[in-house]
């Protein structure tokens, strides 16, 4: 299995654990919000690991 796939799998497992953490009486009402937030998080995966400013690249604008 590729490194990338393993990474995704591990984070999926952590997401499930997070989901489970919220399945408690006083946190229960936040569960749908957590699910939506996690889905939004999937979109961030593509930009992971790059610094904000590219070294040795002088942008004009």
């Amino acid at each position, binding site marked *: 299995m590729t490194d990338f796939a393993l990474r995704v799998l591990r984070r999926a497992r952590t997401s499930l654990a997070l989901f489970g953490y*919220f399945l408690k009486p006083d946190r229960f009402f*936040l569960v749908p919000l957590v699910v939506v937030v996690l889905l939004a998080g999937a979109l961030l995966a593509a930009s992971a690991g790059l610094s904000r400013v590219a070294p040795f690249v002088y942008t004009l604008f």
Partner: protein
Amino acid sequence: MAAVLGISGLYHDAAAALVVDGRVVAAMHEERLDRVKHSAALPERAARACLAMAGIDAKALDAVVFYEEPFAKFERLLGWLVQTFPRAPSYFARSLRQQLAKKLWVLDELSETLGVPRSKVSSREHHLCHAASAFFVSPFEEAAVLTVDGVGEHTTTAIWQGRGATLERRFSLEFPHSLGLFYAAITAYTGFEVLDGELKLMALAAHGTPRYVGELSRVLHLGADGDFALDARYFDAFTDTELGFGAELERLLGPARPANVPWDLARSPDDRRYADIARSAQVLTEEALLGLARRARREVAADALCLAGGVALNCTATARLAAEAGFSRVFVQPAAGDAGGALGAAILRALELGDPRPAPLGSPALGQAIDAGAGADLAERLGLGVSRPPRPFERAAEILARGGLVALATGRGEWGPRALGFRSLLARADDTGVRDAVNRRVKGRESFRPFAPSVLEANADALFHHVGADMTPFMTTVCRPRESALGELSGVVHVDGTSRLHSVSKERAPALAELLAEYERSTGRRALLDTSLNGAGEPIAGSENDAVAFFATHRAVDALLLDDVLVERRPR
């Protein structure tokens, strides 16, 4: 018999600490290696450096422990955003983005980055890590422990009973009622950068009078019995790293000070007003801490107090606690802020795995050692003059005596944000002209900020009313000089008549002790101005590379001592 790596990171002051068989073997700040001040990275470099220092492989680790519970933190963040809706959409977006990009997955990241099985990676509660970082390396078998910071997961303040190898929580306060966030808000209001500027606010406070305690008491209500509350009306948003003080605070205190405007306390009435506000905030914070400490004295029948959490770095406050809280001894370890959480986390897990409690903290030199040979080679290649004089400290003392500046980079780097004789810039302590030159030409700090002295332990009582002797080896408190000593200390006494004394012993800081002794032998003076080995805006030097780079860049420094190697400038 376990090897445990503790990690703090992703917020600010990332660090790693390694405890092997119950001994603190190594501890390093990430910023010393990645050269980003207050680095908020995942401290991979520091972690690897700690492992290298101990000569063990990551695979040999029994546990890796993170200093905060990611899920609990996320829960509080989400809950708070929901409660404060519809205010502060930008904080919302930024906080959630950080959680989703990195913070929720920190345990997985640690496992992958270090190559340690995920089952060995865990987290512990933030304030418990703070408490452990102080109590378990303190000289006390029993103590009250007070942890005060911005916020962990939910807790901002806690009182613990420390006994042997256990810590028991006795009292806590929760977000948003936080002394750390209150102080940070006033720091931001005064135009300083949060998490970096609190020390500046504390220095500024000494220049003011507490005319605004009444107004600020509306923001921070002090209750009976150590309790306190922040009034949410004065804040727009609460997250752990960003505190949006609102328009209401400006209505109360006047307009906030813009950032990066030069200070002029002598001629600007506005700047004096900010100094008064700073002083008032400082007074209120001290009163709050005293209330908590007195409560701790009642709750925990112990004669000693340990402090940790970012607020414990407020050395003016710790001096008041030492004098007024009713404890006979007070201890604050050098990395009292978030970096210390790494050490606390590691010790907690080591204790769980059956290892004994570590010995009391001796020397703060827990970082990477200088390679003087490599440094000498580098210095030569950069066109500097390198020599190995038979008596290097004599030469250094000579330079200091005539008002020169000497950089000292020796042994292993310090744990904590203060220079404690391993990565120091030294100058004579009795000359305000020299002090100003240090500031103008090297440190570039605001003129209202003081410099601190290093003094041999044996001389501390003669020069100072030496209170807080458990703290002065780590520069975590302030003392008053004796009248008779003021002449020797004119460059290192703050406007309020205190100095952040560094009491130096041969056991804890051998090189600096020897240099101080040599300096006293040749000049009769017993104190040196001791500031950290770095220029403006950069972290303290870590390796010989950093020390040589610092020396090459700052022409005002006359010499650099790398262990016994003397680096000077070649005559043109």
